[in-house]
């Protein structure tokens, strides 16, 4: 761009010379900005390209196609949050990554296995008690994915844990609100299938349609959403084929207007 302006400047002269000097000054400024940004890449989560895989339906939703190491991804929502966390763990856990769940004595482990989580690499600390922060920090040192639930933490503790995750290249997955998270996934109810509204329905709960919304860094301000089956057939995550597949990557506002 700078060269283009310079070329026209040499031909036209006079007024264009001002434009040329402006372009040079802008170029210098940009280079300075680049240099100032230079030492930072290590702090930028996922900059080294290390991304933990997630199931294909979620990969299209998440920036980078998976869980970037070093990030904090909060999972919230009144329904489906637990299933969504298990779905996030599944692919990486199956590929050899270690996951830990802190503060969830009521986690359904059969559901975890059905979602595809390798139970032999899923460490559980059901009752961390007062040591919640210390336990989370310790697990972030050694595990790849750490789900933390339970009480709401102070902002200083949150910042400490997020920094620890960034430093160790782990992914922190708070289950519940976590102000300051890099990404926030919210599960919104779609509806169960298999159980009819009428009486005497002979089915059983089979699949649930949910709408997973994503907000945070690297995502358009309006957020993104995807329609998924969570759990899908046999407990695994799946794409909701009957739902609007093109809803992925489109701002929510557009979709709702359309």
């Amino acid at each position, binding site marked *: 761009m700078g060269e283009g302006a310079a070329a026209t400047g040499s031909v036209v002269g006079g007024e264009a010379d001002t434009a040329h000097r402006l372009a040079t000054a802008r170029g210098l400024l940009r280079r300075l900005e680049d240099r100032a940004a230079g030492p930072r890449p290590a702090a930028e989560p996922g900059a080294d390209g290390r991304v933990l895989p997630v199931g294909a339906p979620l990969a299209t939703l998440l920036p980078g196609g998976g869980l970037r190491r070093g990030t904090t991804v909060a999972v919230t929502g009144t329904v489906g949050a637990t299933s969504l966390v298990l779905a996030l763990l599944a692919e990486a856990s199956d590929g050899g990554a270690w996951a830990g769940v802190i503060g969830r004595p009521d986690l359904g482990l059969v*559901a975890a296995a059905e979602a595809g989580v390798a139970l032999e690499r899923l460490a*559980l600390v*059901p009752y961390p008690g007062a040591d919640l922060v210390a336990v989370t920090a310790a*697990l972030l040192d050694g595990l790849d994915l750490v789900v933390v639930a339970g009480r709401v933490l102070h902002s200083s503790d949150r910042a400490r844990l997020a920094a620890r995750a960034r430093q160790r290249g782990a992914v922190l997955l708070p289950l519940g609100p976590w102000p300051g998270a890099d990404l926030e996934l919210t599960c919104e109810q779609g509806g169960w299938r298999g159980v009819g509204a009428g009486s005497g329905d002979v089915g059983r709960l089979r699949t649930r349609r949910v709408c997973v919304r994503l907000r945070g860094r690297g995502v358009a301000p309006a957020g993104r959403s995807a329609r998924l089956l969570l759990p899908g057939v046999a407990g695994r995550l799946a794409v909701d084929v009957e739902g609007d597949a093109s809803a992925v990557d489109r701002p929510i506002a557009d979709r709702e207007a359309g």
Partner: protein
Amino acid sequence: MTVPVRVLALWSPDWPVTAAARAAHLTPDRPAAVVVANRVLACSAVARAAGVRRGLRRREAQARCPELVVLARDADRDARMFEPVVEAVEELAPGVEVIRPGLLALPVQGPAGYFGGELAAAERLVDQVAGRAGVECQAGIAEGLFAAVLAARRGVAVAPGDTPAFLAPLEVEELDREPEVDRSELVGLLSRLGLRSLGAFGALAAGDVASRFGADAVLAHRLARGLDPRPPVRRWPPAELAVELELDPPVDRVDAAAFAARTLAQRLHGVLAAHGLSCTRLGVGARTTSGEELHRVWRCAEPLTPSGTADRVRWQLDSWLVRGGRGAVDRLQLVPEETVGAGALQLGLWGDVGEADERAGRALVRVQALLGPEAVVTAVLTGGREPAERVRLVPWGDDRDEAASRVPAASGGEAGRASGSPVREPPPPWPGRLPAPSPAVVPPDPLPADLCDAAGDPVHLATPDLLTAAPRTLAVDGGPPRDVHGWAGPWPVAQRWWAPDGMAGSRLQVLRADGAAFLLFARAGRWEVAGVYD
């Protein structure tokens, strides 16, 4: 590229001669040599001064030094005589590994910190060996075992980071010094190619070495560059690789110990071969009749052969038994402390496999130190019908496989999580089991629930598979009643009716209008929440 840890090697020169001369009560000033197959294997310093060299014919050695005492070789004796040296070192420093009789190594970091410096530690250890065992030895410090042994032969301490520079000017013949490894062909070939120093050999590209000289040369090449001889991919062998032998009657004689050692070594190698592994560090453990536990680690330059294993076990037992005062041995255990793939030198295709597991294990142990051993668990799926019943929680560090198959004693009444649930062998078909999806939330203690019909009256079971009325509202754990959108069931469950903790009741899936789905269980006329489909 990992830098090996700094190792202190203690080397007693001419150990076969030293041991033989001590056994024969010869004074050190008599020239002596150990002769095998008519060739001199080792000679004492006095004999060397008279011109005796390793590899000379016996007659020629005697011609050069007429008063030479010719001794026979006895590997058992060498190992036995070396034991006091090892014990003397162990008094001061942990982690001693015997490489072969006459040579031992230990990580230098601990003693260096304790005695205030590596040189001070080496000096202290040499003094200790001389004082306690009456054996002269030389110490050497360098990065990695190979360099440390070479440093010990020269009696030098290589400064941190200088190991490649220390190795570079040495002759390639140094690669062929270990009696167990025959690299004469490689060394000869390298010399003919004009690569006469380790530095010149190390300067070759690793890929060229591998394609031209073969697997053993890759190892030698790593040694020459001052790297860890084995590729950094190592894994800790699982516990079941260890083999044990109960000795009944207890063994107190060396020949009986040798027999036991051979059978045990063969068993160990059978186990290792079945796993496609071979052992590079062997732990030998024994329990004496007086209840004392003895353990010693042997480290080997090459993966152990069955006979090599048997020899080491025999030497170790020999030294323990002959020293006496410890009683007979009634149990023998071999633990492969470090293994490599049986292909001996297979550079890791996927890099640092196993490192992540080890790192995770350390983190979990740290949490256990914080909260107690029961606080960190992993889950094992077992047989059962209820979501809670199908999970058994195993404290981290316990054997998962054992937990999966164990049948615990039925505990009384209270349907606690897995701990109170009866678990049987987990063959797949469990008729009446809830099909997938399973509830993502399973309360540790079932929550009370109130199921009411349109009139606000509680809904009960008319028969195990029939409700008294269509449910209209559901309130969970004392919460406000919410409209019911749909339900499925009830499905009767009756299991373990013969046991006091057996259960009979019905399951019901209830979907509320707000989207929450519950798994209810009717027990003795009351509904409780067994799971939430979150």
